[in-house]
């Protein structure tokens, strides 16, 4: 999974970074399947790997690419900046192995029987559902406001 993440961060062009993000989503989905959460995994796969990639690619394609000169000087600087990342990761990994967390976390046992996810979402957490509807409305309003093309004034 780390390979996917590193690809995302250090990808040369924006498109490669976006594909790296989609790859990371796919890996996260597989991990979620292993952790007994199939519904969330499917959601993550369809939404993140699909929708967000589409959003990013459309945003990137609406903006102008850099000229060649800028690309060259940008890549020299980029290697210097992003080269620190693997070193940082290795340092942090070593530091983390020294931390000892005591295993005295008491997790309350599951008393009520486990319900299916759909039942949980509809019965227990209806306020969250309402919140999601409101968030989608904000998204729609935001798209209308932000993506509006000015007709004559800007040109």
């Amino acid at each position: 999974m780390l390979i996917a993440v590193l690809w995302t961060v250090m990808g040369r062009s924006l498109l490669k970074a976006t594909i790296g993000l989609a790859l990371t989503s796919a890996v996260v989905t597989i991990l979620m399947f292993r952790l007994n959460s199939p519904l969330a995994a499917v959601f993550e796969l369809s939404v993140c790997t699909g929708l967000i990639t589409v959003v990013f690619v459309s945003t990137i394609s609406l903006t102008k690419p850099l000229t060649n000169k800028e690309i060259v000087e940008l890549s020299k600087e980029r290697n210097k900046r992003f080269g620190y990342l693997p070193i940082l990761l290795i340092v942090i990994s070593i530091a983390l192995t020294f931390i000892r967390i005591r295993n005295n976390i008491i997790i309350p046992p599951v008393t009520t029987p486990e319900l299916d996810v759909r039942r949980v979402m509809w019965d227990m957490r209806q306020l969250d559902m309402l919140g999601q509807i409101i968030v989608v409305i904000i998204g729609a309003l935001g798209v209308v406001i932000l993506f509006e093309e000015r007709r004559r004034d800007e040109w």
Partner: protein
Amino acid sequence: MSGDYWQIFLTFGFFIILTFVCGLYCMLVSRNIIRAIIGLELLIKAVTLLMILVGYVSGRTSVTQAMVITIIVIEVVVAVVAGGIALRSFRYNDNLDIRGLKRLKG
């Protein structure tokens, strides 16, 4: 918490922390606005993985799945709004440089 759950927790937690660091680094260091948003998305993925991990370890998978679905919905809307703002900024500045956003000072 029982032994092998703890092992799984530690292993996954290790990777989640590393993803956090990558995402934060990407967000703070990059010069391009869209790369910063990609870093943000990486961070959110790390948090969703943490949530699922907590659900597995504590045995309550359904509630955490419901929470994760909600988080994903909100994340998509945040990404769309952020992309919209980046687009507007591009229209004004003609480049996607984050260093150019220094007009407001003081």
